[in-house]
């Protein structure tokens, strides 16, 4: 584990990603102190360009502070990104592990269900779910979790099928270990690296889906989010570019940072690549 950490610290792009991501996390955590006011409050005149009096990034068409929106939006984006990825990890790993370990009919059934979800366009299903269940943050997380688990399930299944036939796993079965112990203690720890990598990349796509939902007005109306800011500002983009460009940059940087971290993890957790370093 220490050697993994060390080789990650020597991974240049991974470290850049980690720094940017840390900056976003710090921004999100310190948002209530940096911008103690509600980001929905009018704090100045509408349509103020960036670097106006007290408004670093300008104000939007209702006089709300764009900078405050971005800081508070960071909280929502990160929370949704992480929790919905955890949701999809729980669903995907459970289904993939069961299918991969037991094989046969169980595998058939599980994979048909997975394919069902893979054939439905993910984003449309997310829209449908949020529109039906109501635009609450918990429903958004649920919707994103539901549409993003199939790749994780497929990956977990493949890893489990590979490890299932390995001799140390068979030895554990012969030792009389119960199936649950074999799965959790023997197979999962050896399959976890690629799952972590894919999971970290799934955080980025979850943030994008959330932004897209909010852009369409399906985000939680009580919470400021980057997607909502861009969506609200799109009608005035020719008069006031800053209202959509800054939240857009925030999404770009965060997603890019997470992808860089994911790539870095991939390189360091993959023994074939990391040994060369």
């Amino acid at each position: 584990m220490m050697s993994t950490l060390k080789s990650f610290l020597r991974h240049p792009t991974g470290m850049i990603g980690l720094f940017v991501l840390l900056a976003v996390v710090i921004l999100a955590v310190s948002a209530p102190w940096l911008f103690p006011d509600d980001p929905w409050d009018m704090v100045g005149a509408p349509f103020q360009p960036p670097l106006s009096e007290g408004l670093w990034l300008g104000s939007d068409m209702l006089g709300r502070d764009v900078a405050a929106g971005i800081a508070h939006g960071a909280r929502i984006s990160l929370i949704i990104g992480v929790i919905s990825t955890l949701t999809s990890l729980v669903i995907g790993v459970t289904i993939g592990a069961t299918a991969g370990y037991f094989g046969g009919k169980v595998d058939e059934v599980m994979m048909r269900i997975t394919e069902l979800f893979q054939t439905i366009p993910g984003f449309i299903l997310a829209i449908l779910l949020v529109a039906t269940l109501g635009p609450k943050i918990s429903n958004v997380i649920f919707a994103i979790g539901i549409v993003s688990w199939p790749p994780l399930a497929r990956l977990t299944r493949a890893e489990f099928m590979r490890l299932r036939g390995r001799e140390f796993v068979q030895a554990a079965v012969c030792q009389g270990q119960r199936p649950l112990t074999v799965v959790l203690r023997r197979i999962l720890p050896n399959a976890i690296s690629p799952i972590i990598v894919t999971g970290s990349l799934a955080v980025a796509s979850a943030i994008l889906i959330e932004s897209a939902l909010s852009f369409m007005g399906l985000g939680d109306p009580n919470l400021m989010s980057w997607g909502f800011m861009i969506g609200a500002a799109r009608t005035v983009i020719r008069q006031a570019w800053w209202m959509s460009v800054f939240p857009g940059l925030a999404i770009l940087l965060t997603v890019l940072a997470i992808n860089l971290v994911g790539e870095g993890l991939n390189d360091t957790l993959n023994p074939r690549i990391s040994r060369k370093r």
Partner: protein
Amino acid sequence: MTDKTLLAIENVSISLPPGADRPFAIEGVSLTVNRNEIVCLVGESGSGKSMTAHAILRLLPDRTGVAQGSISFNGNDIAKADEPTMRKLRGGAISMIFQEPLSALNPLARVGQQIAESIITHTKPAPSREAVDARVQELIRGVGLPDPVALARSFPFQLSGGQRQRIMIAMAMANNPALLLADEPTTALDVTTQKQILALVKKLQAERGMGVLLITHDFGVVADVADRVVVMRNGRVVEQGTVDEVLRNPKDDYTKSLIAAVPGARSLTRGDRKITGEPLLDAVGLNKTFITKQGMFLPPRRTDAVQNISLGLKARETVAIVGESGSGKSTLGRLIMRLIEPDTGSVHFGGKDLLSQRGERLRQMRRKIQIVFQDPFAALDPRQKVGDAIAGGPIAYGTPAKEAMADAKRLLARVGLQESAASRYPHEFSGGQRQRICIARALALKPSVLVADEAVSALDVSVQAQVLQLLAELREEMNLAMIFITHDLRVAAEIADRIVVMRRGEIVEQGETQMIFQNPSDAYTRALLDAIPGRAMFAGPGARQAEAASA
């Protein structure tokens, strides 16, 4: 003298990067290979024998290099030759074949193409396509493969291990090399295939007057093909001489121990072990067919891995199941372990039907039948401490963790490791030590049947002898019945009370070990016996004849 000498390595040392277990991979190694002779380089893993061969072609790993000494080939020093010169030599005047022909061939190119490549690379100006094709077919025919035209068009995965190694040899012969370096060319092959490949190498060597440097860890192979022998240990040459000198009259203690370790030289089963009574494990009419889908339009491929096999195992008895790869012997072992389910047939253990057990009842039965796998590197979880691996079984059956761990430590001491090994991870151990750990893990549950699936095949001969000795002791101490699956009749001869010979999923012959060796009734068994490397030198009455002939 000098025009006889083809390759002369003088006082060569190869430095290892700092932090390795020793400063030099090989130190002060000197050896020569003459034209028209086979020199065998013998040693255990880690002795530096492969490094020596790789140094000749300068194929050393990063951060290692020839620190001192000279390597002269045909009178030219190639230790300091520039890269273009070396490139011309590799696959030209000096070629090399490797241990694992599957990984040495490009999986995505047809084998004919790969042979052609080595011709084109070394021929200026480039020959015509027809000439190359004709030469490729000539080479394939030269290594004894049928239907060269069809074979040149196949991919490596479509060939058997022996065929692949023949292709490798054809490729090595492409430019009529003066020197062939063969790095354990038969270690991954069955005994019968090994015999054919060795005969082929010997034939080609004699036809072309080549010098061959053959690396092996098996003195049986040495006895069969070598003219001269060089024995290496820990990077140094401990003894060299003609094959007769070294094998019949070894001077160094290490050479003596290596020769003594050749399996088949002694029997661990002495006298009557008084095995009587009803079978403890009784398998009747087992069948298993694997069906692999071959794509949408091809019929699925059926492999009858195990066909109508019946096998009884009495308490304390050791039965060896012997066969080549693909004979179904491992499948049979896994059927008995219930790691795979048979299509038909029954297995009774202690009077109970093993195959109808499910869930918790099956789990309770499992503790009585344990397995040791072939590859000690794959059989241990890299993320689990050794002590936990051994204690895991008893804990799963309700032994308190503390007690199980104390037992695990005692077992580790019994199999010849230190008790402190319990808190270390598998990667800190050598292959032989890992196999001891696997044995301890299997025995922690106090089984009455132990299935050893090629348990010593991946080990060096000397380690193999120690592990066999350990198994022979443990079976007496713990009253174990053993199913010993192996491809090596020599190993079977040492440990088994009874030998079962399998071929293509069927039993062709079975009987007492002595009887199989002295009086085999089946032609296939006889072929297996004939293929034992070094049989003339090591096994039974044949040895005296060979001695008489050489005298």
